[in-house]
């Protein structure tokens, strides 16, 4: 097993350009995750349009200081394309007689919330319980990239298959369990170390990250395990690295978006939302969310165990499938 680790390391060192580019991209992705999430603590962006510098009435000025919204005061209404791109959630135009009109492309819930805030700016308190906190968001954003990394580095295993190295391994004394475990440990390390280093560095610079470093280590490790085992699982079914890679990255993108890694779509309690729990990403986000809010229930713990179980299953299937393909049976 140690021989495999050493060999993997030497092979990667042969392709330094590749290694640097992929580690650089990981670091970019994690930094992106941290910068994006540090700014989304408000309930929405609102454009307050005051034509011709007219003075604000008291209720409007109180509204513009409301800390739950990010309010920009403009002279002319923003173009509609900015609303479509979610630059502003709503445009409030103050007319000359002090009345206002609200324009939004969003649903009625947001409309009512803004009306409530306009009516009574001082007492307005939105429902913040449904929001995710910083740590969950960072983990959610990192998740897709960490999962894709697994497919990226599982090329080491895929190349063994493509170049028929694996047939030699099959007749060597090492068992497939140990062989795949060796690759797994290597991939795991190369996913875990760069992303964790960025998180640790961010912590050292004093950026608020939500979780403690130890928790981050645990969460990233679980994600890296899932990513590694999924990639090995996928590669055990294909003899061509490209097919596994294309299929793997499109599956990961699709399921991560569905599971709401970036953006929580579905509301709880619909059938559809329950079905989405098949994706481990959804369970993972749920777990991180519960952990951060301190509301761990047994259901959430089971969801966490499901992720671990799925990883074990992926790994077992990968080993069994590879063994079936390459051992001579008759």
């Amino acid at each position, binding site marked *: 097993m140690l021989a495999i680790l050493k060999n993997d390391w030497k092979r990667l060192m042969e*392709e330094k*350009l*590749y290694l640097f*580019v*992929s580690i650089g*991209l990981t670091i*970019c*992705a994690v930094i*992106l995750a941290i*910068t*994006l999430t*540090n*700014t*989304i603590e408000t309930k*929405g*962006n609102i454009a307050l349009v005051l034509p011709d510098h007219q003075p604000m009435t008291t209720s409007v000025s109180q509204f513009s200081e409301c800390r739950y919204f*990010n309010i920009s005061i403009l002279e002319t209404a923003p*173009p*509609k*394309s*900015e*609303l*479509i*791109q*979610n*630059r*502003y*959630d709503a445009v409030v135009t103050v007319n000359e007689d002090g009345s206002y009109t609200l324009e*939004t*492309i*969003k*649903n*009625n819930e*947001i*409309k009512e919330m803004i009306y409530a805030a306009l009516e009574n700016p001082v007492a307005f308190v939105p429902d913040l319980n449904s929001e995710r906190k910083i740590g969950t968001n960072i983990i959610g954003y990192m998740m*897709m*990239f960490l999962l*894709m990394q697994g*497919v*990226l580095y599982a*090329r080491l295993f*895929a*190349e063994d298959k493509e170049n028929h190295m694996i047939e030699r391994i099959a007749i060597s004394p090492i068992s497939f369990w140990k062989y795949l475990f060796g690759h797994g440990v290597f991939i795991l390390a190369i996913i875990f170390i760069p992303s964790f280093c960025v998180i640790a560095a961010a912590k050292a610079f004093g950026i608020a990250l939500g979780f403690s470093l130890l928790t981050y280590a645990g969460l990233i490790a679980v994600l890296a395990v899932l990513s590694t085992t999924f990639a090995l699982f996928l590669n055990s079914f294909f003899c*061509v*690295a*490209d*097919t596994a*890679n*294309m299929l793997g*990255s*499109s599956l990961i*993108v*699709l399921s991560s*978006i*569905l599971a709401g890694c*970036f*953006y929580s*779509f*579905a*509301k709880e309690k619909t059938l559809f939302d329950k079905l989405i729990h098949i994706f481990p990403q959804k369970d993972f986000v749920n777990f991180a969310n519960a952990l951060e809010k301190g509301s761990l229930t047994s259901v959430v713990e089971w969801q966490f165990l499901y992720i671990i179980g799925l990883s074990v299953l992926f790994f077992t299937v990968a080993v069994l499938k590879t063994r079936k393909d390459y051992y001579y049976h008759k």
Partner: protein
Amino acid sequence: MRNLYLISKEDLKNLVKNPMWLFYGTVFPILLVVILGFLGKESYGGDVTAYDYYGITLIIYAILTSGMTSANAFMEVAIRKPNMRIIYAPGDAKAIYLSKIFSSFVFSSGCHLFDMILLCSIYHIHVSAIPQIMILFGLTELFSVGLGVMFCCIFKTEAMANQILSIVINLFAILGGLLFPIDGYGKIARTISYLSPAKWLVKATFAMIYDNNFRWFYYAVIGLILATAAVFIVCDKTFRKEDCIC
């Protein structure tokens, strides 16, 4: 020229025959739009629907990912031996990569045009300024297939080119707000998002459709032409016909 045409024709046949690429080019974008549009439906009102947003952004996403198709068309295992024959044949060896660019351009634009027509007729996505959008998307398509081939020329193997390309494209997509709108995420996010070419495309397209504003369109077109020229130059400099020997 005739060589180039003949090789491109064969490459196109090779692309159309592979069910995986057909799936990736036609079904995958539709699936993305249907799923994301369905999921995002609740947060939009009646005037503008989630499909109006995702129908545009995800087609741009699909166009950017067509770089993976061209990378595959260039260095797929099955295509390596034919490539080697072209080196020995009389004529310019540059036809190898140029033909891959043209054939995957034709292939992916065909797929995405079909997707757009289908999606617009099913979900009544609000579109205007169609000729300009066609020009913009066509140029983007040329740029992204060129980018795929460029990565192949630089990294020499297809697997590596593909994997790095997919991470780069996804970073661009998220920064550009293709998978979810990013503009609401504060000033820093908005500033970084301009690093991504996807952002310029989205902005240009929406400004044309909803504001009738063509300023961004001209910027995007000029930027794309420059970027495509750069990609072609890098291809020309880094392509060595020895790499096709196997």
